[in-house]
């Protein structure tokens, strides 16, 4: 009876005319934490969905999946049989937190449903318990958050709601599909600790899908590397990361190193990784210290925008945005959330302005206001000479023709009924774009190449792509017409390191070529450090610190910035953490 908790053999997942995952095998013991890494679109999510029996329509699985204590094979089990396992013995955190929550149900109820579902908890207790669960995932003011609808929560908050839901019944097998992509580093650390604690405590199994090698290193005992639907390498974490066998794995390691560049000064991708020499090989080197060189590389270009700074492209003054959430009771006034408070900053043309900060600190809200999609409660926002606050749709036209936005949620921002080619080409339809109609196809193909998607992707619909692929579609759409301003919300959060490197390279190119002005939100300090010349740190709706990236990273002044920089994970650090998993540092 001491067999593995989960035994997967010969798992093949195929869509109508393509094989998405081929012959996947995995044996997972109780208490074991297995990481699944690999290229974006390599089939990680599909594998997870196949284990849960939740493949989308038109996609089918074959092979065998056995869960200890369950007589039947999970593949081919009836919906009835599976629904008895799901939520109880199998828990899953889905990749895209924004579309994974029911938009019309308060999140507290959604969590409570996971509890009541399997009989254990009566309704009232479930409500109570769901608030506790929300608290355990560090949602601020959990009782109130429980009353919020998903669209009233930030990306990272929703992701944590999903996590709370998956953890609700202490499942035997927890599958996490990129559970921390929307979380800032300090919250990320806490969530990882929460997950691994739980696994250790209950002796359950963890299948952890991530593109973040540092995260994988910090939590997983064993790593599986998937590429093109095929397992190309597996082994204990140390081994895979220190002595990668497969060239792809080696490439991934190279690409994850944002401090290393190739001969052209560009980040390594899997393709260019041949020339990569790991910096200070195995363990023990704190990554953050190596920040200086890449920032200095950027220094000369930074001079140009500085001169023109007399005329900022974006000028934000005393910006505040207050949301109201639904009432928790009839008698109390609706709760107010101060998403932005008294925010002021300037962005000059050509500047690369990074925004980092706590999950829920108002980053997405800020970007939406910059794009004129939301109106500030008070304060002024001038973008390219246009006052955004209080202007009407028509007046925003001019502003927007120079601006493109990439949303945090790629799925929601793609029209499900348009083919990807049409979606990407859409900005070209605007008057004043230089591309003639007959060249649209070619231009789309170019963009698909640039973001690393196959050209035939143009003919498919958004739902047929992986999370990372969708994110790239959104980026391609934003960049196709070479906007003057790009406002991007976590645009690379779902990308594997290689593709991420490719995208970051692309952005750098555009900045250089067209003087693209960038407002870039990311929770990944490394990415921001690499890409941005200026960084603003947000905390609880305020900008607590701004300055040149290097300076802020090297000498953080505000307490929160210090915590943030300190919690930043590098690959090696991650391994260190895992080694001392029992006594993880609580960051606050």
């Amino acid at each position, binding site marked *: 009876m001491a067999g593995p908790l989960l035994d997967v053999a010969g798992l093949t997942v195929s869509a109508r005319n393509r094989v998405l995952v081929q012959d996947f095998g995995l044996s997972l013991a109780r208490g074991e934490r297995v990481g699944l890494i690999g290229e974006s679109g390599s089939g990680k999510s599909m594998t997870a969905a196949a284990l849960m029996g939740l493949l989308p329509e038109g996609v089918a699985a074959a092979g065998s999946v056995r869960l200890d204590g369950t007589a039947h094979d999970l593949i081919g089990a009836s919906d009835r049989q599976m629904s008895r396992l799901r939520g109880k013995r199998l828990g899953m955190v889905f990749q895209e937190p924004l579309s994974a929550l029911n938009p019309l149900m308060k999140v507290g109820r959604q969590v409570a449903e996971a509890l009541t579902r399997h009989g254990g908890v009566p309704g009232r207790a479930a409500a109570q318990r769901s608030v506790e669960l929300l608290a355990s995932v560090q949602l601020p003011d959990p009782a109130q958050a429980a009353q919020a609808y998903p669209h009233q929560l930030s990306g990272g908050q929703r992701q944590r709601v999903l996590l709370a839901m998956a953890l609700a019944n202490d499942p035997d097998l927890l599958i996490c599909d990129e559970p921390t992509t929307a979380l800032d580093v300090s919250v990320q650390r806490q969530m990882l600790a929460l997950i691994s604690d739980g696994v250790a405590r209950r002796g359950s199994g963890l299948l952890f899908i991530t593109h973040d090698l540092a995260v994988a290193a910090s939590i997983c005992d064993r790593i599986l590397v998937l590429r093109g639907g095929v397992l190309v390498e597996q082994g204990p974490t140390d081994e895979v990361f220190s002595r990668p066998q497969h060239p792809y794995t080696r490439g991934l390691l190279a690409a994850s190193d944002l401090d290393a560049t190739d001969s052209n000064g560009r980040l390594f991708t899997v393709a260019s990784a041949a020339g990569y020499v790991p910096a200070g090989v195995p363990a023990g080197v704190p990554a953050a210290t190596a920040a200086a060189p890449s920032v200095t590389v950027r220094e000369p270009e930074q001079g140009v925008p500085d001169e023109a700074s007399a005329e900022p492209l974006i000028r934000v003054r005393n910006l505040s945005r207050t949301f109201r959430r639904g009432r928790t009771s009839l008698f109390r006034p609706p709760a107010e959330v101060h998403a932005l408070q008294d925010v002021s900053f300037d962005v000059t043309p050509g500047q690369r302005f990074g925004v980092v900060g706590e999950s829920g600190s108002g980053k997405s809200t800020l970007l939406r206001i910059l794009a004129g999609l939301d109106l500030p409660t008070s304060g002024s926002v001038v973008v390219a000479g246009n006052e955004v606050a209080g202007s009407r749709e028509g007046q925003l036209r001019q502003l927007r023709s120079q601006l493109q936005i990439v949303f945090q949620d790629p799925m929601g921002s793609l*029209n*499900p*009924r348009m083919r990807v080619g049409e979606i990407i080409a859409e900005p070209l339809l605007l008057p004043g774009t230089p591309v003639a109609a007959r060249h649209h196809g070619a231009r789309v193909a170019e963009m698909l190449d640039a973001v690393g998607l196959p050209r035939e992707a143009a003919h498919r619909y958004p739902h047929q792509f992986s999370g990372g692929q969708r994110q790239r579609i959104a980026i391609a759409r934003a960049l196709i017409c070479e906007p003057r301003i790009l406002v991007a919300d976590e645009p690379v959060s779902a990308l594997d390191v290689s593709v991420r490197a490719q995208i970051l390279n692309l952005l750098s190119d555009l900045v250089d070529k067209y003087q693209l002005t960038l407002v870039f939100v990311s929770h990944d300090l490394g990415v921001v450090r690499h890409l941005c010349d200026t960084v603003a740190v947000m905390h609880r709706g305020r900008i607590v610190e701004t300055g040149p990236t290097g300076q802020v990273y090297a000498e953080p002044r505000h307490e929160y910035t210090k915590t943030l920089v300190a919690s930043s994970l590098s690959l090696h650090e991650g391994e260190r953490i895992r080694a001392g998993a029992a006594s993880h540092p609580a960051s606050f």
Partner: protein
Amino acid sequence: MKTARKLSPALLAGAVLVSLVLGAALLSFLWTPYDPVQAFPADRLQGSSTEHLMGTDRYGRDVFSGILYGARITLFVGLVAVGIAALIGTPLGILAGMRRGAVEEVTMRGADILLAFPALLLAIMFGAVFGAGTTTAMVAIGIGSIPGFARVARSGTLQVMSTEYVQAARAASQPALRIARRHVLPNIAGLVVVQCSVTFGLAVLAEAALSFLGLGTPPPVPSWGRMLQESQQFLGTYPSLALWPGAAIAVAVLGFNLLGDGLRDRFDPKLNGER
């Protein structure tokens, strides 16, 4: 990709049924077994026979000829009424849903008034001004059906407008018309298609009711709706009189509904997995 798309059974069945009706309508221009208008009192109320496939009615007219001929009227009435309603109502609804505020207020309250306005009154009014007849009736029915389309389109639009892909398009300064065409319309198309097919059925029957009030197709020109209506009294004695036009209407409505369903499902990329 574009090769060898499988037609859904609904779409196929719908297409077959609709072409049947269309075929009957076209055929009636060239040939009907008997004059559909001429009465032969001596041959009245006969059952099906080789001479009269579907028997004869109370006037001794050949029902089959009437059905063939009636297909014209039915198609005409249904399509034009639906066309009017959909082409006016849907854009209005989308407009109201996209431009909230005064525009919405005016269009929707207008639609409310029109919705409250009995189609019968419209028909009488139109009949008075333009003379009663098939065209008048279907225009009245079409106009009377506008509010339904407007409200359905608006509700769908409201929902679509709150999605991020529309916000992305707005953020990218896409003109409203293009957003309406490329984002809103395709995403409410399912509902609109259903509305069309339902309205088609209702229009055909409404024309019959109006004919009965002297506001539709005047006798003796056969329209299915009126044939059915007139056979009401014979239900107890000659049920087949109601059967044939009833079946014909059912075929047409079913055809358009199936076609509508098929189209709806076809335009729903998520339903079909990969194609």
